[in-house]
């Protein structure tokens, strides 16, 4: 089949990102031609400020060098400006600096023409030494001027203006920032934060003239034109008559979408306030569906974005449609801002103007240089401004994007995300203050410097990319927050935290866990192939991330009907034992409530001798672990043990830990051992989104550690208290009080109902604590405690799910030699 022709106009970040996404989805669908007005490959425009400041070099910020275009079979016309689009003959016409004219036909056209600096119509704007700040050429001109001249004036104290001013100052110039507004960065900061920022920049030597309107740029009167061959700027005059010296004027008064080409081709570009190439939610121009547009040149639902993060979201959706998948929709972005000036931390997001029906939480430590302001409406964060300590910016931003109800955490919201329980990085939770040599990921031994280097050199923008390239945060995940902070501070505004709610399950699909669960429930999907076909999976049979998730969703949604697929389970659940580093396994027999007998202990001892088990250990969950059992020996070990599987390997019920309780203990108020045995027996065979651990203590001394379990039961004289969502692992989380009940039967019913709710709604690999954070304790109480009918229904559903569950060890031990259940443990010969 003849390939279709795709032409991209604009060789910048938005356009090339779209092409990269497209190549991932449909590498062979198009012959691709790219036109770029600049004579380079694609580079990371947001890192021009560090280049100007002398902190990075141009080669370091290249994202796609010329080899990349060649390797992907893309024709690149760099340094060629497209001058016309002929929509009838479907071709574009471009002209090079040398006057050469090139034409290219298209079946699909992608416009990513970006934006241009807005230069107000003031007299003198065309003088030598007056620049916008947009591209490599501007940056080089500024660096060059800094080497020859002394006085720089930056007009506009927005994000870009301050970064330019900072860079010029670091290059030795005397810099004055002129701003028309009452305070700097008024679109991103409130007055208090802006004043602190200004004071800190002033301390570094930057000068400010606020509430000043520029009247004219004046030329030099002397014959010395600085070798520029024309008249060069020498001063700036303001409306109030004041004049200041200026050898270089950088105009950073905002940007305008670059839509002249599109408009001349008859594409609707709006009128009045919102100008830009108007596109639909599929990023197609509203005028011509063959033509797509992404990036800063676009107006979508009345918004033109000037930050990088939304462009990436647009690129993803656009690529999806170019690849004929047709399932993505771009519905607009919520953006955040971060200033890239080394040593100064500023963050803002959302609507922080306040007033009206909003509330505010403010922390202001003028001497300490910290300012935090959160704007809240209806218990949800709608805006935030942070100065000095921005470590929690990404967290607030996430809460805002997710629209999460914050009333439960309101009292400690201001103090940031509580990382105090995190293990593995010395309690460190402020990435900015860590030296490059500090270990961030304690599992894989990755230092901060390694992560920063990978982000810069490989051009990484997302957490997933950093995980893949550096392995940081890819094991236990406890350092995810730190890695996100490093990413945010390295790439600035280009970083966009992915909302956990709508994050795709994996690269095989764009659907989130919630959407996949819903599709399986609503459409009665019963097998993995059916589910993948129905939801349009992008890979033939998924991957090691999505298959186990799908398998769990199927069997938990349709118990006894959906097919359990062993090949889609992680090895531990396939082998019914825990794989160890050397490929041997560990065997943990079931001991209900942590109780055993002399007879069982004798059999365990005999098995350990007979199979030369190297290590026998008591586990944290009150069980006995036989470590180092060979794969071939597993069925024999199980047969000789004659005990049921302890499921120490599964995303399933693990253990119910108990204290001695009223059976023996002189303080005991309730019979905790019996209660634990009953609970564990009820839950035998329960698969869940993640592992589930319970504990029962017989009195408030809580010797079974019920406070850090998924379900913790504590006996008191008048009954039982139930706690949920505790966790003693990566991050210590104290369980929350759910309710108090009187009888043993109620303990069973309430515990089962809570776990069934979690089984029905939890995302795969989401522990109960994270599920609770997502849905809120109030919601769980409503469904489990307040609604008796629903509680009974959940309870029944759990009992139905585990009904007739066969012990997997007994099944495999009894399977005839070379039977289907047994064969995986046997080795063939060659």
């Amino acid at each position, binding site marked *: 089949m003849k390939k279709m022709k795709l032409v991209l106009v604009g060789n910048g970040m938005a356009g090339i990102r779209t092409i990269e996404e497209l190549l991932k989805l449909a590498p062979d669908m198009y012959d691709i031609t790219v036109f770029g007005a600049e004579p380079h490959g694609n580079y990371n425009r947001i890192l021009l400020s560090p280049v100007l400041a002398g902190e990075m070099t141009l080669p370091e910020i290249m994202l796609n060098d010329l080899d990349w275009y060649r390797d992907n079979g893309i024709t690149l016309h760099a340094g060629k400006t497209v001058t016309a689009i002929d929509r009838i003959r479907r071709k574009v016409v471009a002209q090079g600096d040398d006057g050469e004219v090139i034409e290219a036909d298209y079946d699909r056209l992608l416009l990513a023409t970006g934006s241009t600096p807005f230069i107000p119509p003031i007299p003198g704007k065309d003088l030598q030494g007056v620049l916008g700040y947009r591209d490599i050429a501007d940056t080089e001109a500024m660096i060059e001027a800094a080497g020859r001249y002394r006085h720089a004036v930056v007009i506009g104290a927005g994000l870009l203006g301050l970064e330019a001013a900072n860079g010029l100052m670091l290059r030795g110039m005397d810099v004055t920032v002129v701003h028309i507004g009452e305070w700097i960065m008024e679109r991103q900061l409130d007055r208090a934060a802006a004043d602190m920022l200004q004071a800190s920049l002033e301390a570094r030597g930057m000068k400010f003239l606020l509430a000043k309107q520029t009247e004219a740029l004046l030329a030099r009167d002397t014959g010395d034109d600085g070798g520029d061959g024309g008249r060069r700027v020498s001063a700036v005059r303001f409306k109030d008559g004041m004049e200041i010296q200026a050898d270089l004027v950088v105009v950073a008064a905002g940007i305008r979408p670059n839509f002249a080409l599109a408009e001349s081709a008859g594409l609707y570009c709006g009128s009045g306030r919102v100008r830009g190439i108007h596109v639909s939610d599929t990023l197609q121009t509203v005028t011509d569906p063959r033509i797509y547009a992404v990036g800063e040149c676009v107006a979508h639902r009345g918004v033109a974005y000037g930050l990088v993060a939304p462009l990436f979201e647009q690129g993803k959706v656009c690529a999806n449609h170019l690849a004929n998948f047709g399932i993505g929709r771009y519905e607009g972005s919520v953006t955040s801002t971060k200033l890239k000036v080394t040593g100064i931390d500023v963050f803002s997001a959302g609507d922080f103007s306040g007033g009206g029906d909003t509330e505010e939480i403010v922390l202001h430590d003028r001497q300490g240089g910290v300012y935090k302001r959160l704007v809240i409406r209806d218990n949800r964060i709608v805006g935030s401004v942070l100065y000095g300590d921005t470590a929690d910016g990404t967290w607030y931003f996430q809460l805002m994007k997710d629209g999460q109800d914050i009333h439960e955490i309101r009292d400690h919201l201001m103090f940031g995300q509580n990382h105090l329980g995190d293990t593995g990085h010395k309690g460190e939770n402020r990435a900015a203050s860590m030296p490059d040599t500090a270990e961030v990921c304690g599992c894989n031994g990755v230092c901060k410097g390694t992560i920063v280097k990978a982000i810069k050199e490989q051009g990484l923008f997302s957490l997933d990319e950093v995980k*893949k*390239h550096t392995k940081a945060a*890819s*094991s236990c995940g406890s350092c995810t927050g730190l890695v996100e902070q490093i990413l945010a501070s390295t790439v600035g505004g280009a970083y966009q935290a992915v909302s956990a709610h709508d994050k795709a399950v994996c690269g095989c699909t764009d659907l989130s866990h919630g959407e996949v669960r819903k599709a399986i429930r609503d459409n009665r999907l019963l097998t993995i192939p059916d589910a993948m076909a129905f939801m349009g999976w992008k*890979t*033939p*049979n*998924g*991957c*090691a991330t999505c*298959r*186990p998730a799908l398998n769990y969703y199927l069997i938990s949604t349709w118990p006894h009907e959906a097919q359990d697929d*062993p*090949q*889609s389970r*992680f*090895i531990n659940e*396939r*082998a019914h034992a825990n*794989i160890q*580093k*050397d*490929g041997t396994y560990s065997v943990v027999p079931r001991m209900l409530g942590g109780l055993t007998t002399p007879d069982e202990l004798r059999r365990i001892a005999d098995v350990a001798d007979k199979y030369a088990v190297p290590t026998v250990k008591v586990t944290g969950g009150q069980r006995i672990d036989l470590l180092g059992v060979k*794969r071939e020996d597993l069925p024999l070990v199980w047969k000789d043990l004659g005990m049921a599987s302890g499921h120490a390997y599964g995303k399933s019920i693990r253990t119910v830990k108990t204290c001695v309780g009223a059976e023996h203990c002189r303080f005991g108020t309730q019979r905790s051992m019996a209660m634990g045995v009953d609970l564990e027996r009820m839950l035998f065979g329960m698969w869940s989104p993640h592992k589930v651990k319970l504990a029962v203590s017989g009195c408030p001394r809580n010797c079974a550690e019920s406070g850090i379990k998924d379900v913790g039961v504590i006996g008191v004289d008048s009954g039982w208290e139930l706690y949920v969502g505790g966790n003693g692992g990566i991050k210590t989380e104290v369980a929350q009080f759910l309710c108090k009940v009187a009888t043993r039967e109620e303990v069973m019913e309430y515990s089962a109902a809570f776990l069934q709710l979690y089984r029905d709604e939890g995302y795969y690999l989401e522990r109960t604590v994270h599920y609770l954070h997502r849905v809120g304790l109030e919601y769980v109480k409503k469904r489990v405690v307040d609604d008796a009918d629903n509680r009974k229904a959940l309870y029944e559903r759990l009992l139905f799910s585990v009904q007739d569950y066969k012990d997997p060890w007994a099944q495999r031990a009894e399977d005839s030699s*070379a039977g289907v259940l047994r*064969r*995986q443990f046997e*080795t*063939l*010969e*060659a």
Partner: protein
Amino acid sequence: MEMTMDNNRAVAAATEGAPGEGSVGEVLDGWKAVCPLEAIPVLGARVVASRHGDIAIFRTVDDEVFAIHDKCPHKGGPLSQGIVHGREVTCPLHGWKLQLDSGEAVAPDVGCSRPFAVRLVDGVVELKV
């Protein structure tokens, strides 16, 4: 895969009338019958002990078979116990992905597990060792 007419006939003769795991045996040119295809689960693997150490034989959803050394280049994990998807396997220990045909790790990871020649003749999996 290199295969001559003679070889083909020899294989057919060796397996004729006696399919199943019990009938495996040595044939010409170093090809050895290992097991019937059905002995490997779809999207699964089996381990074969050989003079080169353990070899993992994989079966894809399209009944293609591949063989690579049962040792992940990362930390030696048994690849045969991983999850098979497309023409790749994910190592059970730390999640490295390896290509079944070449044994090469999928980028950005770098490394290789030795591939072995394997073929399917009349429903029997044969390995060249």
